[in-house]
């Protein structure tokens, strides 16, 4: 029996994946990112594999890279290899979570403004203008300080959750060592996320306005599709390129911003590390102990490059106007 079948359409994502796979630079970016992310997320979780990133042995300070300490030791005799990986965890978490928060808010806000138009648009964008006028750093610090008291409770709660309420002091402290660097950053996630969506919302609004005027949207309307379906199914995919490029550029920006805040006493607290802190400490001692600067910078710069290449590739791949092949 033979039937005549229509040629099966391929989805946007399927096309995009195919196109992305052909982009070598982007694929190299994916591989580098995967390696770094896996190393930072998995290796510290394996017990007894890495040295304690905060354990000091002053007698072994300032040692250049060797078999025992792959990346050398710092001025307090701490193992740089494990500090880079533990620090990477924090930097990556800050970069990704905060960017996710900010992009989500920004996309919804901008899309709504651009699609609704008129008074809604005016009202929403005036809010953006007002927030733009506020000094970013000061607001982040104030907001962070306002939320900070809760992080103590949050930390205690998380420690009880993971270690058990009746656990010994040393067991609790052990749990605290890895829980605390993350919970103390919650104010930072919220504060930066809540304030850095402004640019995204403007980009998205402009894109949405542009796309909404085109004929295929008119067609969708005349078919009687709902607003949500038009917005999320037809408009946003067409605006995805700039959003993705912007996102990949935001992540390293926020990682750097975290270093600034950590220095001001708001972000990562000593003795915990992040790439930003390690680079700052390394830069101070680069003349005498260059490895302190080299390895954290290597990780940070590779991540940044990889994200940029990936972003570039994704923009090309996700462009619905590019030819199907």
């Amino acid at each position: 029996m033979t039937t005549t079948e229509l040629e099966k359409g391929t989805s946007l994502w399927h096309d995009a994946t195919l196109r992305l796979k052909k982009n070598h630079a982007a694929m190299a970016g994916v591989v580098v990112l995967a390696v770094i992310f896996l190393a930072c997320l998995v290796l510290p979780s394996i017990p007894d594999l890495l040295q304690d990133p905060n354990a000091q042995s002053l007698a072994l300070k300032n040692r250049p890279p060797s078999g025992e300490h792959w990346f050398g030791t710092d001025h307090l005799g701490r193992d740089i290899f494990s500090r880079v990986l533990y620090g990477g965890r924090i930097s990556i978490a800050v970069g990704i979570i905060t960017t996710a928060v900010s992009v989500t808010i920004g996309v919804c806000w901008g899309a709504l403004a651009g699609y609704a138009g008129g008074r809604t648009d005016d009202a929403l964008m005036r809010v953006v203008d007002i927030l733009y006028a506020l000094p970013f750093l000061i607001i982040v610090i104030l907001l962070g300080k306002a939320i900070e008291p809760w992080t103590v409770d949050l930390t205690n709660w998380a420690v009880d959750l993971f270690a058990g309420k009746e656990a010994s002091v040393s067991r609790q402290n052990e749990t605290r060592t890895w829980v605390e660097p993350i919970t103390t950053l919650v104010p930072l996630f919220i504060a930066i996320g809540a304030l850095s969506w402004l640019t995204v919302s403007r980009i998205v609004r402009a894109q949405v306005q542009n796309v909404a005027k085109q004929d295929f949207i008119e067609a969708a309307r005349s078919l009687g599709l709902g607003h949500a379906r038009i917005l999320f199914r037809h408009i946003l995919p067409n605006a995805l390129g700039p959003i993705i490029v912007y996102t990949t550029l935001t992540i390293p920006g926020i990682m750097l911003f975290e270093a600034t805040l950590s220095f001001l006493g708001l972000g990562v607290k000593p003795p915990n590390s992040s790439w930003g802190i390690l680079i700052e400490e390394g830069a101070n001692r680069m003349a005498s102990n260059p490895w302190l600067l080299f390895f954290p910078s290597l990780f940070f710069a590779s991540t940044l490059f990889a994200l940029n290449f990936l972003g570039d590739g994704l923009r090309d791949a996700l462009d619905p106007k590019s030819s199907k092949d």
Partner: protein
Amino acid sequence: MLRPLLLSCLIAIALASCQKQTQVERANEEGIMLVGNSAEPKALDPQLVTGVIESKIIGALFEGLVADDPESDDAMPPGAAVSWEHNEDMTEWTFQLRPEGRWSDNTPLTAHDFVFAYRRMLTPDLAAPYAEMLYFIDKAEAYNKGEIEDFSEVGVRAIDDFTLALRLREPVPFLPSLTRHYTWFPVPRHVVLQHGDIDDRFTPWSELGNLVGNGPFQLSEWRFHDVIEVTRNPHYWDAENVGLNGIRFFPIENPYTEARAFLAGQLHTTYTLPPDLVDTMAADYPQFLRQEPYVGTTFVRLNNTRPALDDARVRRALSLAIDRELLCEHIFEGYTPARSMTPKMGAYEPEPVLSFDPEKGRELLAEAGYPKGKGFPRYSMLISRPSARASAEALQAMWKEHLNILVDIQNKDWGSYISAQQSLEFDMASAGWIGDYLDPTTFLNMWTEGNGNNNTGWHSDAYEELLDKAALQADPAERYRLLAEAEKILMEERPVLPVSWYARNYLHRPEVKGWHPLLLDNHPWKAIHLEP
């Protein structure tokens, strides 16, 4: 588009490489010294500041009765006073001021300016944080605490325009050395009162354009967080012997940045050198590295009003867990482990009580109700500059390892770091104290009730009684014995945890002449000249 950009870049690089002269070389030609000075000063009013940073600038703008000597801590060259004499038990002093003394606005400098300065310093409403430096004057403490209201009862008097008489509450053999400290400097009555009342804090009188001093230099530029520049004061009595045309003070907070700026030829001298760079500098730049003795103590200030920290056993436990040898060997390069609050000073030697004994520390902590650190409150330790982070992290690790106590580290800028301590809104602070004069009281007098530099909330009647007794004692050996006994109480109670005794590590260019090692590190600016 790219080509003009590339071209202009090339031109810029070419220009930059032509300009071989460094800032120091240019300054050498101009006779201007470039000084790294750590942080933006809190103020330049000598009566409202407490820091070493401020003292460097104030020392160029003002001069006390007695001047600093470039080569010796003990020599007492004349300053605003030409001569002085005292009675037999050293309680009555008369200073003869030089008749040609002038303020930098050419107004005569008289004994009345000194009387006004001491009166202002002691006015209760001014709340001068360093007022106790004047408590050596009879009835000064009572006036400062509002117990008497008539200033004429206080032992300061202008006999005539150029004769200042001081009546002290106790014999003070080191009074000339004391008057070299900025708290004893005169302030210009005519300028202060023009900008506010005697008890107004932070009026514009000490700002650029208004500030009038009697020192070898006058304020000529003040760019916030950038530079403070002073230039020759033509009305200074010894103006012809001033060797520099000016000094620029740069508030470079990060000592690593400062060291880089020095090596790039931007500074003649640095405020400090991070201890972990000492070895590198000794190997690569021995001609610049200076390591000198310095009378000072680094310590951890505790807020004794906080729960747990209000218990002497806890404070001693924290102290016993500090491995001072290890710290000095690896972090405080060149420093010596502190054995007490006061470093050895002449014949004064306090009992060496501080030791490292974590076992004893754990016992004390358990006795105080925190066995194995259980239930110990979470406190944070203030630091004021990034280079203090290493030692703070080392202390943090020692307390965690030996006592199972977790402490956070919090960085604050210099101004809020000081304010937080003065208002007791802190838990612990990594701090340091540099002697103001060569006598153990400069390390002991501040731990008394209400003292503007105590900032611990701790005081002890027995301790203060011993200090008072020592103050009235004319026999030096007996006086030192009483002071040592007081220090023993201080160490028993341990409101602060001394960590190390300072050494001064810094970078210094050889063309700066007239700069010699001094225990108190007060180099008289007027004696310095540049010989490139």
